[in-house]
């Protein structure tokens, strides 16, 4: 069991063993987040730069807390207040940051593939914190961790992802990763928000909300990604809520103990009704807590990854 890669760019290429190693490590980190002293010295002296070329509060805060709880020095770089607005190229920005000798870059960028491009052009470890429509691997990991804590085992679970599949990198990371661990995925959303070539995912695409929810163990609701849509893809949010929103009534069609998740931010009354979002079946805040543990695991595994030699098994 190991993770020997330089970076964490996406779930698409990861093996089942690598995903499980990340999840198992993250599970152990959840304990640290419950302590009075929420800090271990593991990454003391390592520098983590959060390179965020796209606005984010939740993910950036989560990564920052994760780094700090491992004793790494975390620095936030936001594009709006930086040289990118002065005309510097992406690689120049990266190389300038690299010259300050950081150990890990946590990168978010609005273009798909940009994080991989950065990773290929730097010796620094790179964690993808979301690139365009492509991937958001730590979100998929925290989704799976939350499901595993609630259901015990991932194998054979029925999971529905409902909403704007096309414009969701969270959905994409979930879709690559979950079937690898034995989860049966079904997708549903307005036909304008279902990818044209969804066959590559190998998931069932449902025709209506009832089919999508029926018998599900877990329901992952997505927000309409207005900022990534070129044109309006639904007539109105009211209509969207009616056909694609999760209400108490619709939730009743799922398994009795079905878990409802959402990557946030939630649009209450649109994709998720308040009485569902705030119910006992909601795992939304648990997802946020687990996010810190997952990001600690990612930073830990990459941060100690520069292995230099032998290990004395007998070192007591």
């Amino acid at each position, binding site marked *: 069991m190991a993770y020997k890669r330089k970076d964490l760019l996406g779930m698409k290429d990861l093996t089942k063993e690598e995903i499980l190693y990340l999840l198992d*490590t993250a599970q152990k980190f959840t304990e640290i987040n419950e302590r009075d002293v929420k*800090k271990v010295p593991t990454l003391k002296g390592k520098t983590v730069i959060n390179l965020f070329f796209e606005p984010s509060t939740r993910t950036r805060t989560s990564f920052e807390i994760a780094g700090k709880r491992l004793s790494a020095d975390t620095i936030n770089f936001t594009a709006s207040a930086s040289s990118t607005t002065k005309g510097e190229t992406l690689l120049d920005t990266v190389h300038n940051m690299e010259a300050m000798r950081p150990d890990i870059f946590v990168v978010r960028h609005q273009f798909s593939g940009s994080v991989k491009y950065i990773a290929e052009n730097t010796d620094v470890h790179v964690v993808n914190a979301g690139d365009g429509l492509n991937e958001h691997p730590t979100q998929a990991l925290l989704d799976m961790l939350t499901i595993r804590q609630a259901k015990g085992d991932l194998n054979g679970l029925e999971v529905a992802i409902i909403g704007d599949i096309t414009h969701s990198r969270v959905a994409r990371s979930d879709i690559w990763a979950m079937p690898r661990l034995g989860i049966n995925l079904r997708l549903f959303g307005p036909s304008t928000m279902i990818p044209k070539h969804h066959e590559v995912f190998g998931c069932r695409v449902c025709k209506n909300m009832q089919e999508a929810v029926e018998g599900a163990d877990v329901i992952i609701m997505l927000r309409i990604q207005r900022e990534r849509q070129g044109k309006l893809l639904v007539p109105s949010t009211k209509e969207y809520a009616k056909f694609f929103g999760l209400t108490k009534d619709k939730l009743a069609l799922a398994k009795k103990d079905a878990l409802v998740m959402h990557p946030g931010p939630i649009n209450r009354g649109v994709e998720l009704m308040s009485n569902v979002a705030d119910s006992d079946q909601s795992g939304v805040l648990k997802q946020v807590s687990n996010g810190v543990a997952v990001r600690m695991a990612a930073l830990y*595994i990459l941060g100690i990854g520069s292995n*230099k030699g032998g290990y*004395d098994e*007998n070192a*007591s």
Partner: protein
Amino acid sequence: MTQKEIMNEEEISRTLTRMVSQIIESIKENDGICLVGIRRGGAYLASRLAQILKTAGRKDVLLGFLDITLYRDDLTTIHDYPVLHGTEIDFDVCGRHIILVDDVVFTGRTTRAAMDALIDLGRPKKISLAALIDRGHRELPIQPDFVGKVVPTSLNEIIEVRLKEQAGNDCVLIQKTA
């Protein structure tokens, strides 16, 4: 590589019983006994010490396990990815006398890491150290309070404590690498 058995199952069992009596003797009547085993070898030994104490009628025994992987000073030199086993201490360490349990005390670095890990959980009144084997070669000013057996070794020897819980049988081996 040559290998020699220096303790068998019966000797380990007898040694643990003797360590338990030493521990009981050293602890004041009303203090209770808090054993914290250092994963992984020390965790099995701590469980056994706790079992012996319970069999002897002690009801005030607390047992916890400490994973010190995140506190190691050699983490970046470990050649394979370390697996976290997790810390499980479901009592408050503040104000208690904690007895750390490890299988072998060698350089003292594991003990150092364990003390740091423990202190991050609270402020124990006192920390003692119990080890089944003391093989010398300390690199830090650390001495165990309860020792099962002192084994003089050279640096190219390896002490292996095999326990039923992990290896299927109980014995302590000394191996000489060429």
